[in-house]
């Protein structure tokens, strides 16, 4: 921590007085200097303050190309995740792609197979939409061991950005979708050429290919120069570094839709093509790992989202789930996007358990962990959306419960 200039001045002042030498008129005190000191010059691309150390949670992996980083949800405000803090999940590292050489091939059950350069894609009608992306493995640890210690560890595989690109329907109309085309294969240009099968109805309804995030080009780890956006579906289907779309008649049973991203049930069967993200919420402040700075007023803040549409309501409990009060929802509430909720709260300094519960426009209520386990056991791995609570101790420490 840097020394406080005021404190240093106060420490120095008596010494100066003792020495009997007041500051000369053209010399400024430390306090006077700060606001008028000439600062850093202009620069071509803004970087954040060196004092802002917020970063993604990076696990220690033997293969850092095969893994994920987590958004520090407790250290973000509003509903937009800065691109540099958006969670990552890669299956074979981040490719370095020259956009001038990248293209998107659309073929299969279409009348006219087409290749689009990035420049051509950018000429097509564009749209911008704010959507969350959540990895279906987010909070997966809570199935077997609830109590993830902080918001990033228990819920950081979710982020929200504004994405800009071209409607998939526009592209499929250009290529002329054949009526036998029922599924679409989307493949990335990463080393493992990861692909997923998606039902054509969803592709035509609201999917798009995105080349921009939060007003600038996609970051490499978010799929530069092009990714698929499948609003409300599990993150893995938002294929990054998108290079190929093939329209087919049946799902092609890729490794990522069979051995992974399928939800094992207690009877030994597994749900497949479990795409939709169920409503979920998390209190980001106060949250695990933080320290309450004294009793009295605190604003409870958090995020809620649903793959089935808008968030209608978020309830907050500050007594371990016995009673609930409605939180205020920040407008605009967008479909399949983060919604920020807030609730004023007086903490009496006593130990307490706080939690939030989201309700979406379909009427779905975020379940407790007990409800989830009753429905799916504990080996389901994916799509955990149970109510998350934080325990606040009388010393102000906050822990995962």
């Amino acid at each position: 921590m840097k020394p406080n200039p005021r404190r240093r001045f106060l420490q120095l002042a008596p010494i100066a007085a003792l020495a009997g030498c007041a500051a000369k008129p053209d010399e400024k005190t430390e306090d006077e200097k700060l606001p008028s000191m000439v600062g850093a010059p202009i620069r071509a691309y803004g970087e954040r303050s060196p004092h802002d150390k917020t970063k993604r949670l990076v696990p220690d992996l033997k293969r850092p190309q095969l893994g994920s980083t987590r958004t520090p949800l407790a250290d973000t405000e509003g509903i937009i995740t800065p691109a540099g803090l958006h969670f990552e999940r890669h299956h074979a590292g981040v490719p370095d792609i020259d956009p001038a050489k990248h293209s998107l091939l659309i073929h299969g059950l279409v009348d006219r197979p087409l290749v689009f350069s990035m420049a051509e894609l950018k000429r097509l009608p564009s749209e911008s939409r704010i959507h969350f992306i959540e990895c279906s493995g987010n909070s997966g640890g809570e199935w077997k061991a609830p109590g993830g210690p902080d918001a990033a560890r228990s819920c950081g595989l979710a982020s929200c950005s504004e994405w800009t690109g071209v409607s998939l329907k526009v592209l499929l109309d250009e290529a002329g979708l054949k009526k036998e085309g029922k599924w679409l294969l989307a493949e990335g240009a990463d080393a493992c050429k990861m692909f997923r099968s998606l039902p054509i109805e969803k592709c035509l309804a609201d999917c798009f290919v995105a080349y921009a995030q939060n007003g600038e080009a996609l970051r490499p780890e978010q799929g530069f120069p092009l990714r698929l956006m499948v609003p409300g579906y599990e993150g893995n289907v938002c294929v990054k570094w998108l290079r190929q779309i093939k329209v087919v008649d049946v799902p092609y049973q890729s490794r990522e839709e069979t051995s992974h991203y399928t939800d094992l049930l207690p009877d030994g069967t597994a749900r497949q093509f479990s795409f939709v993200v169920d409503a979920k919420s998390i209190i980001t402040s106060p949250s695990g790992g933080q320290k309450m700075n004294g009793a009295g007023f605190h604003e409870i803040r958090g995020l809620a989202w649903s793959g089935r549409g808008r968030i209608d309501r978020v309830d907050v409990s500050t007594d371990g789930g016995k009673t609930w009060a409605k939180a205020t929802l920040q407008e605009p509430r967008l479909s399949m996007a983060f919604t920020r909720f807030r609730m004023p709260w007086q903490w009496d300094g006593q130990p307490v358990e706080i939690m939030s519960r989201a309700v979406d426009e379909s009427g779905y209520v975020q379940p407790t962990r007990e409800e989830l386990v009753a429905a799916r056991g504990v080996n389901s791995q994916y799509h955990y959306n149970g109510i998350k609570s934080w325990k606040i101790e009388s010393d102000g420490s906050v822990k995962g419960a």
Partner: protein
Amino acid sequence: MRRLSLILCSIALLAQGPKYKLGHAPSDADVSKTDIFIAPDGKGLPPGKGTAFDAKETYSRRCARCHGTQGQGDQEGPLVGGKDSLKSAKPLKTVGSFWPHSTTLYDYIRRAMPFDNPGLLDANQTYAVTALILHWNGIIGEKDVIDATTLPKVKMPNRDGFVKDERPDTGAKAKKK
């Protein structure tokens, strides 16, 4: 009447035509180079063949470092075992116990393996390694020839183990509201 239907047909055709006329038609060679998808019925499988027996050298040189000398797992999880474990407290999801389609194995090895140099194996080597993993899981014999015709016919033990997504399976109370 005929004239009217002709006009209607032309309108329909126009409506189906490209609106923005951007992009260009790929060559057949471009498409076949890029299109490495393999359908569960085997469509897309290339010529070539291999047996588990043929695979031993390729496997030990290219695969064993991560997957173990017998597919038992090392830096990565195991490729074999886990039979009848899916209902247990500790399910072990392997090619043998969990994967529903044999074609996925060829598709994935070809597109993504070896991890640090995908595409290194030729078609015969890929068929052979596919056969080896199937053999280790007790699904085929060591000398069984795996190729574009035989692979899709291999029935995986967990072929019928996948069900439709039944969600929402929680949060039912509010739905009645």
